[in-house]
């Protein structure tokens, strides 16, 4: 038994699997086209802290716009996800590097992608259900409170290692007021606090 599970990702290691009756998991947090999702953001990159405003907007089904500005309002980047395409509308010269764009692209895709095809489902005690989806050679694990059905975390992993952990806190009316994006393999963390814009 130990050998069978030892190479698995810690997120689901040793957890009982069950037959999933859910084909898609819907991420509810950026799903309303009528809401401007505006967050105060703090990016900790290596030893440096960058503050700013993160704006997420669902334009239509499978289409999100994601803009990060300084506290003064100057754009740092402006991305768009359309179906499976990714478009950079703007990025500041100083951070216009493929490696940075790829990290941000992956983070925001995990954060905002609404419809996710579920591969497998697991139970973690009586408290949590974990839905696993497959995405670009990696896995996303949607950790859901079994009682309230609230999405608590998204854990992105390879076959064997957890890579990115997104934690949602203080959920009010399908808006997560606090979000933390934590990278396990690189010292980049993003903290988001919802700003009530109207």
């Amino acid at each position, binding site marked *: 038994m130990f050998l069978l599970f030892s190479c698995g990702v810690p997120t689901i290691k040793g957890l009982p699997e069950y037959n999933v009756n859910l084909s898609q998991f819907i991420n509810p947090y950026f799903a309303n086209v*009528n*809401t*401007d999702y*505006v967050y*105060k953001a*703090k990016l900790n990159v290596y030893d440096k*802290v960058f*503050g700013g*405003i993160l*704006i997420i*907007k669902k*334009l239509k089904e499978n289409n999100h*716009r994601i*803009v990060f*500005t300084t*506290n*003064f*309002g*100057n*754009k740092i980047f*402006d991305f768009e996800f359309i179906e499976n395409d990714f478009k950079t*509308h*703007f990025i*500041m*010269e100083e951070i216009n590097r493929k490696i940075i764009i790829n990290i941000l692209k992956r983070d925001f895709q995990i954060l905002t992608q609404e419809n996710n095809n579920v591969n497998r489902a697991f139970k973690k005690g009586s408290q949590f259900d974990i839905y696993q989806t497959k995405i670009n050679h990696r896995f996303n694990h949607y950790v859901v409170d079994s009682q309230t059905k609230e999405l608590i975390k998204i854990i992105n992993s390879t076959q064997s290692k957890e890579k990115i952990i997104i934690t949602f806190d203080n959920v009010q009316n399908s808006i997560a007021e606090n979000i933390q994006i934590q990278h396990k393999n690189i010292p980049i963390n993003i903290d988001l*606090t919802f*700003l*009530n*814009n*109207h």
Partner: protein
Amino acid sequence: MRNVLTVILLFLSTNVSLSQELLSQNEIKTFKENVIRQDAQTKTIVSDFIQYKHLSFLNNDIETFGNLAFKAPNSVKWEYTSPYKYSVIFKEDKLFINDGGDKSKIDIGSNKMFKSLNDMITNSLKGNMFNNNDFEVSYYKTQENFIVKFVPKDKGMLKFIALFELIFDKKSNDVIEVKMIEPSKDYTKIIFHNKIRNTNVNNEVFDN
């Protein structure tokens, strides 16, 4: 219906272009002299402001409230108070940042971007930025305002600012609004209110 709409739009746009008239060389000279004279007599400025960030795809502009203080020769504090707390202080070639309690310091002497940000904030607050060689400057008037438009000459800067506008109250020669328009037409608009010149401003205001 479409024709009616076109006529209305045409009328509106003609109206806007009519209402913004170019200043004559004499008017420019008088206006500049007034602003420069007022600036020379200004030891301090305090003001409240509302910042509107307009992004074409949002339902509402993002509104941020704050206040600022200036003390001659070159101390500036720019503070957002709601819905988040963030302040920057420009003092003696340094930039002090307080981001909701996280404090940091940047040497602006070595950073061209922050130096031009500082110049822009200080000068737009004072209204006096006519001698800036980084911009192509043009002057307009409406019934109540003078509008000065600055187009950056630097290609690098043009990538993020297409146009920078200062709107002055004709009577007081004070800047009442600043607008930074991006190449995408998204913009940041700052409206000043409760602006007071030469009131007492303690040096402690500029301590981080």
